[in-house]
């Protein structure tokens, strides 16, 4: 068991390295660098020294070095100094931006996973047990719909509904009056309310997918011999379904956390932009548009690493649940 975990951990390292290379390539693709815009601005303002000022900056940051050296400098700073570079757009250290925005991203992602499981698992199981009933058909329909609606569209629609019908404040993480205030029950509830729509939106398509997968799994399992054995032993249906079948049906659920995570983070990115949430999403978009490379590079690296860690966790969980895996 431990050997398995250690093996997977060791596997992590080359993956992160590979991803860092890909991230670096993607960041380097657009022509120019982080100072290109600044140079443009200076020229527009008629500054005769534009070129020299920017050149000096470039020297300091080692941007004139060949590509490979730049990569190692970048990665070196991250690994050894925990220094992700600076953001020219906001004139801050990237590390600070991460510290500010990452927690909220993680919060929403974590809440989405929990929400997905809590809702999708019972629904998936019930629609299998009660197949071909109204419940089954309607949940299938909603599931299909959930997978079809682009998440930003869903966000817009829900915001519309919440704003007009429920009178909720939307956008951002909390209402105006609470910004900067110390945490209180009122503030907590307000934040919770603001989080409802983002979590639903982000969770929606993976929830829908999960319901379908679970339904299929449970239907498959219900015809299996061990279920018959359990019944022949006199076990009540409740035990048969929620103990025997559930554990097996959970296997694909657990093993897919690794893949749900990038989808969630992906969805979270775009939803945050639409809903003006203080997470990674908006910062990322802006940094791409302004070619604030250190920021974009760091974000891609972090997000992907989170995903890999997520898939590692899911592999470990899988090994705990399904002992057959460890022996293969």
């Amino acid at each position: 068991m431990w050997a398995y975990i250690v093996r997977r951990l060791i596997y992590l390292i080359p993956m992160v390295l590979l991803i860092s290379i890909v991230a670096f390539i993607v960041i380097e693709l657009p022509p120019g660098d982080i100072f290109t815009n600044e140079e443009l601005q200076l020229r527009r303002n008629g500054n005769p020294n534009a070129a020299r000022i920017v050149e000096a900056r470039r020297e300091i940051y080692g941007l004139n070095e060949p590509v490979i050296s730049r990569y190692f400098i970048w990665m070196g700073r991250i690994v050894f100094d925990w220094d992700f570079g600076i953001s020219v757009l906001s004139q801050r250290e990237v590390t600070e931006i991460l510290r500010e925005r990452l927690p909220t991203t993680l919060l929403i992602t974590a809440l989405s996973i929990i929400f997905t499981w809590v809702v999708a698992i019972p629904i998936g199981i019930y629609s299998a047990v009660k197949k071909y009933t109204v419940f089954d058909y309607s949940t299938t329909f909603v599931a299909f719909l959930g997978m079809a609606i682009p998440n930003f569209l869903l966000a817009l629609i829900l915001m519309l509904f919440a704003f007009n019908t429920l009178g909720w404040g939307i956008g951002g993480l909390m209402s105006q009056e609470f910004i900067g205030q110390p945490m209180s029950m009122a503030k907590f509830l307000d934040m919770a309310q603001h989080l409802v729509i983002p979590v639903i939106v982000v969770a929606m398509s993976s929830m829908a997918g999960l319901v379908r997968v679970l339904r299929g799994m449970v239907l498959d399992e219900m015809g299996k011999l061990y279920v018959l054995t359990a019944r022949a032993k006199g076990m009540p249906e409740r035990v048969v379904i929620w103990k025997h079948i559930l554990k097996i049906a959970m296997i694909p659920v657990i093993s897919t956390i690794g893949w749900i995570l990038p989808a969630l983070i992906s969805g979270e990115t775009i939803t945050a932009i639409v809903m003006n949430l203080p997470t990674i999403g908006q910062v990322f978009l802006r940094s791409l548009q302004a070619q604030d490379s250190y920021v974009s590079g760091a974000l891609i690296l972090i997000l992907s690493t989170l995903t890999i860690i997520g898939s590692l966790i899911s592999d470990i969980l899988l090994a705990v649940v399904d002992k057959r895996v460890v022996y293969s």
Partner: protein
Amino acid sequence: MGAALSSLEESTTPPGVHPHLEARRETQWYLFRQKFRTHKLARVSLWVLLFLVVTCVLFPEFFSPYSPQRVFDNQNLPPSRVRFFDADGRFSFVPFVYAFTQELDRETFQRITVVDTEDKRSIRIFVLGDSYRMLGFIPGRLRLFGVEGDQGVFLFGTDKLGRDLFSRTLHATRISMTIGLVGVLLSTLLGLLLGGVSGLQGGWVDGLIQRAIDVILSIPTIPLWMALAASIPRNWSPLGIYFMITIIISLIGWTGLARTVRGKFLSLRKEDFVLAAVGFNAPMLSIITRHLIPNFLSYVLVSLTLSVPAMILGETALSFLGIGLQPPVVSLGVLIQQAQNIQDITLYPWLLIPGGFVVIIVLLYNFIGDGLRDAADPYS
């Protein structure tokens, strides 16, 4: 299974013909089509999809009343109400709209539309409208419908520049759907190629490709697309951007098919019937074409169909964010972008109608893909 059984029973043998000859008719393709037919939702979806293809992809110019670029004086108009009954309750066989003016409401300070019930404007079929080039080269002016008089008929309302949303939506659907198709073709080819090589060759080639897939799958899709899309120089031609976006979306999508194909190849290599064919000294090429390929052709078809929604959603998302397609190339995502903030949507909710089109198209492809998958599965 019922359909397959009954089709077997229905193939009666004419007297004198050996029963074995009759059985030959039940080819895989025949059974496949039969099973697809039993999936009602998939069948209906196929017809609806074909309808969309004809109206939006092939001949949107004909089916829309105006050119998508044409600007009217009336911005942000709600959808025109096409009526059959007039204010006095009389039925008119010919549908019509009332002429209208826009006034400022004294109390809410919003613009409201006031109809003039004395001024009826009939909807006409086969009118001559703005000129166009059908399919890019056939010039014409004939349009399916239009309205008499100087005001326009706006089935979906107008946008903030006063352009007919209905016409724009039809044309945008064409772009969105074709991007999906082209992207899917690309990623399918990639997937088949790399997956096939991976499965057949094995060894380090396989390992390399698998690691590459792992890496790609680990990077969250939308951020990756965003990064790639943002690196397209802004000064490229709209068509160039169109193609780059297509390539970008398809780059990510091939991994699923590659995995499946690889898995299929790996398992098929050991299958008894392949070993048997090898045992009979059948040439390798014929093994591939006659045994391996028919086996997973259906998988490819299913994967193709089910990937299109992902492509469309991807392009829509990128365009919505502003880093995908740009005007004048207008896709459904570009249209939705105009509906980005709460105030606009509250005041002009019809701006979200293009979003509805996206949902419907995605659903259609999902249902058809589902039907294909059920049809392809010999054991269900």
